[in-house]
């Protein structure tokens, strides 16, 4: 009991520490000072009165939402004496694998750089800056010569790395038993089985109404849809993140989705946020990065050719180019097994004082990266809001899809979960596919890495992402991949 209490105090302390540096804290302070003017605030009961005022005015709710937001990315409980690497990733062999994968990516990037004699970063001449500013809303019409650029890696390259992942402490033995895992992933991670999944995803049970199924034209709206929409509107009126997250497990009505996601991700477009985005835009105008060309290439190869997303091509540049320069993203590396690549000022290789993270946000885009942003364009058409939502989605969820870790929502666990489900519940299909040389993971891997973006119709995709937000977990992707093969 005592241990739990001290764990809890630690968590509280850490969150308070985190929030103290946030904008919300400053606002709360200001509000508290301003409230002293109010007649109902009395000196004798100052603390209670201010608390009451916060409750009535909705500020308590905002604080609750912020705390809730922090909790959702809070690392799993671990030993108090664990070093920071353990927060990123507790298993050594995983950390090592991620480290060598990163080295490979960086090597590939550097060699492309050398081959093409293009610097990783350069300041744009004033004329070029002006031109870019004019073209900011239609960068898609720009046709730079991208033929020499290649994506740094594609999902299939990453899959090969995962296939070769081994736990040196685990000896499987040569003899095949019913326990032998016959899939491509050969690491012993704990994944949920169907009874556990049923419990976890209890709101997706047959007896509970779902959007996407129970709102089809054959079902009269009075049975489920109308009530569900009404509850959704109530949740939005209350501005309660936790309630929204619970609500969205049954799917979100299209008209409420944009607001619900913003509430769950705790995004509100404050003037500071818009200013921050404008600052990033200025950075883009002033400096050209090599990764910019990678982003261009990716958008041209993927989103521009997509039936649903080609319309939003220009928004994708506006979001991704800014994203590359956003150093606040570096914060997520505290709980990401990956680490941001370091680059050194020319001539000062190895000298830590001259090291910078490259790209500034530490994320090197791969083939298909822009598809994480594309579906969001259906919901948000204001660039700074679109940007904030994407950034939050990335640092909460998407980063796990391309880094090697033991986290239950990490791509390794998802692959293992997918294969285990298939082997356990559809063994004949599984064996058959293996026999003909078509390991099912090779088919479904790209779906999961992209969170199904580009592989599902947008309305279906958004319903799937509703559940990612609702359950704060990516396991639904593995379940969805499994269902695809049913």
């Amino acid at each position: 009991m005592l241990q739990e209490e001290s764990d809890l105090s630690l968590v509280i302390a850490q969150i308070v520490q985190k929030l103290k540096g946030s904008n919300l804290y400053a606002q709360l302070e200001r509000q508290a000072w301003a409230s002293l003017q109010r007649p109902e605030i009395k000196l004798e009961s100052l603390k209670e009165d201010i608390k009451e005022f916060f409750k009535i005015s909705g500020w308590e709710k905002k604080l609750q939402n912020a705390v809730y937001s922090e909790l959702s990315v809070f690392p799993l409980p671990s030993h108090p004496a664990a070093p920071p690497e353990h927060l990123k990733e507790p298993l050594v062999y995983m950390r090592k694998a991620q480290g060598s994968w990163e080295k490979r990516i960086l090597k590939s990037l550097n060699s492309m750089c050398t081959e093409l004699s293009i610097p990783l970063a350069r300041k744009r001449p004033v004329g070029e800056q002006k031109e870019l500013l004019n073209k900011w809303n239609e960068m898609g019409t720009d046709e730079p010569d991208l033929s020499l650029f290649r994506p740094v890696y594609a999902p299939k390259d990453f899959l090969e790395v995962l296939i070769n992942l081994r736990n040196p402490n685990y000896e499987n033995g040569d003899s095949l038993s019913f326990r032998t895992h016959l899939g491509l992933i050969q690491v012993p991670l704990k994944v949920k089985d169907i009874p556990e999944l049923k419990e976890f995803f209890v709101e997706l049970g047959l007896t509970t109404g779902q959007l996407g199924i129970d709102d089809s034209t054959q079902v009269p709206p009075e049975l489920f849809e109308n009530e569900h929409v009404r509850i959704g509107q109530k949740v939005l009126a209350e501005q309660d993140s936790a309630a929204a997250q619970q609500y969205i497990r049954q799917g979100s009505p299209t008209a409420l989705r944009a607001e619900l996601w913003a509430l769950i991700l705790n995004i509100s477009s404050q003037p500071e946020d818009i200013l921050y985005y404008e600052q990033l835009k200025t950075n883009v105008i002033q400096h050209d990065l090599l990764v910019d060309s990678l982003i261009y290439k990716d958008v041209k190869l993927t989103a521009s050719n997509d039936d649903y997303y080609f319309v939003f091509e220009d928004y994708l540049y506006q979001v991704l180019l800014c994203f590359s320069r956003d150093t606040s993203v570096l914060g997520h590396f505290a709980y990401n097994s990956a680490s941001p690549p370091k680059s050194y000022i020319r001539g000062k290789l190895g000298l830590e004082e001259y090291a910078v993270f490259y790209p500034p946000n530490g994320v090197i885009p791969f083939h298909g990266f822009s598809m994480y942003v594309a579906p969001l364009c259906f919901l948000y058409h204001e660039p700074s809001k679109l940007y904030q939502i994407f950034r939050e989605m990335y640092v909460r969820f998407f980063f796990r899809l391309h880094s090697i870790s033991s986290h239950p929502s990490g791509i390794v666990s998802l692959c293992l979960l997918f294969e285990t489900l298939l082997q356990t519940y559809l063994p004949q299909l599984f064996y058959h596919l293996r026999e003909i040389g078509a390991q099912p993971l090779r088919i479904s891997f790209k779906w999961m890495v992209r969170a199904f973006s580009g592989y599902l119709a947008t309305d279906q995709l958004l319903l799937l992402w509703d559940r990612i937000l609702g359950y704060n977990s990516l396991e639904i992707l593995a379940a969805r991949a499994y269902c695809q093969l049913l």
Partner: protein
Amino acid sequence: MGGRFFFVSSCLGRFYFAIMAGKVKWVTDIEKSVLINNFEKRGWVQVTENEDWNFYWMSVQTIRNVFSVETGYRLSDDQIVNHFPNHYELTRKDLMVKNIKRYRKELEKEGSPLAEKDENGKYLYLDFVPVTYMLPADYNLFVEEFRKSPSSTWIMKPCGKAQGKGIFLINKLSQIKKWSRDSKTSSFVTQSTKEAYVISLYINNPLLIGGRKFDLRLYVLVSTYRPLRCYMYKLGFCRFCTVKYTPSTSELDNMFVHLTNVAIQKHGEDYNHIHGGKWTVNNLRLYLESTRGKEVTGKLFDEIHWIIVQSLKAVAPVMNNDKHCFECYGYDIIIDDKLKPWLIEVNASPSLTSSTANDRILKYNLINDTLNIAVPNGEIPDCKWNKSPPKEVLGNYEILYDEELAQGDGADRELRSRQGQSLGPRGGRSRDSGRTVLTTWK
């Protein structure tokens, strides 16, 4: 042995003949695979136009000849064609506008609430065609209107052409001086219909998505005009311009910015052959519901259905409702940034060329569903049938308006929009003249 063989083969021969005799014989002068594949999959037999045919998919030139006074073609009961004789009442830009104006005046004269106007004199429910004038006939009227808002842009369209040919934008009177000179000498110059133009107020505040202008192409099948029975194809699409929209006057000449015809966009540098710059109407609906809300989106789609039905009602009285005819129209609609839809034009011969794989599938299915409705059971047609197909054969069509049902007893009839909800209050359920009009839309 030989005798038996002969017996068998003659049996087969008669069997063959018996089967073939029941097969629909088709002709077409439009060599498109989406058509021909549909005919062949029904086991229909191709013949030439000089032979006995049952089904003729004609081009608009041919229909002109078939029904022209000189040739005096008489179709028999087992012959069906895919155009109404005077479809141009709807599909020629100048006649469409003329008919709609006439229809509005008639409703106004009989005091119908549909013809109600607002304080500025604009029709509340029937203002769905941009202000249009015929040139050179209405030149002076146009000049008067132009001078009221001299900074406006107008679009000049030749009456008889399609695919965006001959269209240009103007914002100065000097750009159309040609038509004014002709009108002064009109008594001496016979205007050939080829030179007739319409000039419409250009919608310079179109709804933009991703910064791009687009228009809607919707397919509407009319099986009879009196009583009016029409169907809307659920799978319409949006056509996007490849270049970012700008209302700036310097770009008035850039047709890639302003015209959405695929025929024009196809030649732009950025045209993509995978998606062809097209979106499904469902995508549009999802986007609008997500960013603007469900009510305004529903209202927009209801209005679109409304204006299509009104346009058909406007021409119904003058249409030659020949029972051998059906027609599949391509409606072009633009939505402005206040989410108001505008009817731009109606095409009698919507393009059957496919620009992408998705396109081919869509058009194939369109023809398939059209044939299922127009030629029931794929059997030799009898044009005297009641033209009321069962629900199951509609495929991707849904009933847009059925005058018989609407006039039947009871108000609630099956006029379902794509969401399974009844077409909104403006769904034309009881909009016939003389009936009390529901006021729910006010």
